[in-house]
């Protein structure tokens, strides 16, 4: 640091209109032994650093250090997040797949190096808000090329002035230190506690982030619902203000072939649903020879093995084997069940052992089987002719 009081009247500056004149002047001043303080120009003058005799800048080292820091940060964050903290295979690549990390690493290296070296420059050169070069020539931002130097003890200003004039200087003058300006800087005032507070913000942020790094996988995570859990899209059966028909689901075009067969069956498995089916469903098929024959065919194939060809368990295979007997279809209990309930049992299975056959037998066929079972019951009815009287009272409510 220079002692500004001592040299206040021994400094001079000379301004030129041409960078090459400035370069020549600097070289001449060096030759004559005048210490050069600095030069100021609107743009960097090629070769000026060497002419003043500046030592090579140490900023590249800071640049390298910040670059390496950026590289380490980028690689560290990427490897840690994608391979350790939340291992997730993306695109079938290995967890630590370096080629994929290169773009981010490159960008962060450049970012850290760039910002870091600028910050280092500010710190190293004492640049801060309201910092002003003392008594700077106003033209150096425009068209003037200025050199500032010191007059050694014993030399007089007039000698310097004539020397500079001979080298083409537009003007040469003594520098007067403007002390009032140097007192306004942020760091020179009582601002140090504030500066420390500002510097502490990143540290506090890092500390606040520590719990995030220390996660317990056995505990349920707090989920951040970014709105993705509740879709804003319309659902199929929602009403719609502007679509034809006033609802989202549209009638398929004429001639569309259904992939599944029929409209959805709005029932699930279970006893409650079965009773609801019994109340709500009607057999869409009327008794006819054709429907009976189809029903018989399906019944003989799929049902008769357990329930017997006549629905009375007589020819049942599993009964013959001594296993659990299925419901007797021609018994009054079954006879009094509504069609819909039988249909539901055929679709989803019975209360005990019977499996649902809904995915094996088509819906139409199940209804026709129900028709056929009614026919079987009618055929079996004459034998217990006196029985019909008590049966409604027992079966109607089941």
């Amino acid at each position, binding site marked *: 640091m220079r002692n500004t009081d001592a040299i206040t009247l021994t400094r001079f500056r000379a301004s030129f209109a041409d960078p*090459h004149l400035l*370069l020549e002047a600097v*070289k001449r001043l060096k030759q004559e032994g005048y210490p050069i303080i600095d030069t100021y120009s609107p743009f960097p003058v*090629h*070769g000026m650093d*060497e*002419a003043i005799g500046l030592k*090579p800048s140490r900023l*590249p080292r800071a640049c*390298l250090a910040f670059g390496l820091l950026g590289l380490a940060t980028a690689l560290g964050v990427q490897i840690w997040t994608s391979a350790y903290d939340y291992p997730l295979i993306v*695109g*079938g*690549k290995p967890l630590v797949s370096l*080629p*994929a990390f*290169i*773009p981010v690493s490159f960008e962060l290296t450049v970012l850290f190096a760039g910002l870091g070296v600028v910050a280092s420059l500010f710190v190293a050169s004492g640049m801060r808000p309201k910092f002003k070069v003392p008594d700077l020539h106003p033209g150096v931002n425009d068209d003037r090329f200025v050199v500032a130097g010191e007059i050694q003890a014993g030399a007089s200003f007039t000698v310097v002035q004539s020397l500079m004039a001979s080298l083409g200087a537009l003007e040469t003058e003594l520098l007067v230190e403007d002390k009032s300006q140097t007192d306004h800087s942020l760091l020179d005032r009582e601002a140090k506690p504030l500066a420390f507070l500002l510097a502490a913000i990143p540290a506090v942020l890092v500390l606040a982030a520590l719990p995030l790094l220390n996660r317990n996988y056995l505990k349920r995570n707090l989920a951040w619902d970014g709105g993705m859990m509740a879709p804003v899209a319309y659902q199929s059966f929602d009403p719609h203000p502007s679509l034809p028909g006033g609802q989202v689901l549209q009638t398929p075009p004429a001639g569309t072939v259904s992939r599944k067969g029929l409209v959805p069956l709005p029932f699930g498995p279970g006893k409650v649903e079965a009773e609801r089916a019994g109340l709500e469903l009607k057999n869409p098929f009327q008794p006819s020879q054709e429907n009976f024959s189809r029903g018989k065919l399906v019944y003989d194939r799929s049902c008769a093995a357990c329930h017997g060809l006549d629905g009375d368990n007589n020819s049942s295979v599993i009964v013959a084997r001594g296993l659990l007997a299925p419901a007797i279809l021609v018994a009054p209990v079954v006879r009094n069940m509504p069609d819909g309930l039988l249909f539901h049992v055929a679709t989803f299975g019975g209360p005990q052992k019977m499996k649902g056959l809904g995915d094996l037998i088509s819906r139409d066929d199940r209804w026709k089987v129900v028709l056929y079972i009614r026919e079987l019951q009618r055929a079996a009815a004459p034998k217990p002719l006196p029985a019909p009287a008590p049966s409604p009272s027992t079966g109607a409510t089941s």
Partner: protein
Amino acid sequence: MKPNQVFSVPSRDLTRPQFPTLAEIGEKFRLGAWTLSGLGLLMLGIGLATSPLHAWANVLMTAFNLTCVGLGGLFLLAIQSTTGARWSDPILKAHRAMPALLPIAGLMMLALWFGADTLYPWARPEAHGDHLLKGRLVWLNRPFFFGRILLFFGLWILLGRRIVQRGKGSAVFILVFGVTFVLANFDWIMTLEPAWNSTIFAIYGFSGMFLQGIAIVTISAIVLRRVGLLPEISKAQNHDLGKLLFAFSCFWAYIWLSQFLLVWYANIPEETAPIRLMLNSKWTPFFYLNLVLNFGLPFVMLLQRKAKTNERVLMVACFTVLAGHWLDLYLMVLPPVLKGASPSFGFSEVGGILLQFGLGHMACWPVFMKDVNPEQELPQAG
């Protein structure tokens, strides 16, 4: 005003007796060039007799590389002329000789007429039955292909002559170069494997070409200053060349990664096949060596400012880049030609390399000799 005088390092004085005269140096260069070219041709001949596949591939590599050298010099010259650069004035003489290679390179490319069916699948008769090639045969057929070669070289030589002799037409050349060099890369190298394509391939080729061009300019500048032919070259020029070399080495790596990363990540079978071969075969070490030679070593070597002004470090870096560019081309040309066979280094490869050095000197030297004539005034940038 001569800003370079400030840092000029002591250069050799031609009048002092311990240094060879211009004529003596010229004689040595010429002798060396003829010997190298003769040896190279001989080796290529042996290669052609023993393994035509390798020989033709190396003819293509040699021709392409000589084109790259010529265009590299021309392109540098054109840029400096368009931007009105002054830093390069002392080294322009080294650039100006390089385009002299273009006619020789063009002749070598035309010589591929006889080896086209060995190298290019689309030039074989059975290509007409290949459904992958059917549509591409409109563009890829012998008359049109060699017609394009003639057109490209014609344009380059004509525009290049205008730039070198009169210092004019640089902007036009840069525009023409942009289109023609892209097509040349696609035509000559990428169609070795006609079913594979990469849209960045030409830029990749350009980055390698430019990097090599800078390396050759740097080598010539240093060598010529050492023998005292370009005494005005100073440390400042070395530093600038070092910076260019460093920057474009990084640029090459950037483009290399841009091509590799997309293919690697997307993993589309038709694109991945060549990369897969590179990553899982005897080519793998060379695949990585390519990165080290073109990017890794120059990057580490030239990172420091001191290194960029040090002639010895610069020379090593430049020759590393030259070797790297040769390997780069080798990896572009040979795997598709050999159809997945292991890499080999034989007569043809040695012949190709010798021929490159020999022809390079033979073509550039006379032009350069004319330029270093003190009475010759260089045309100023327009």
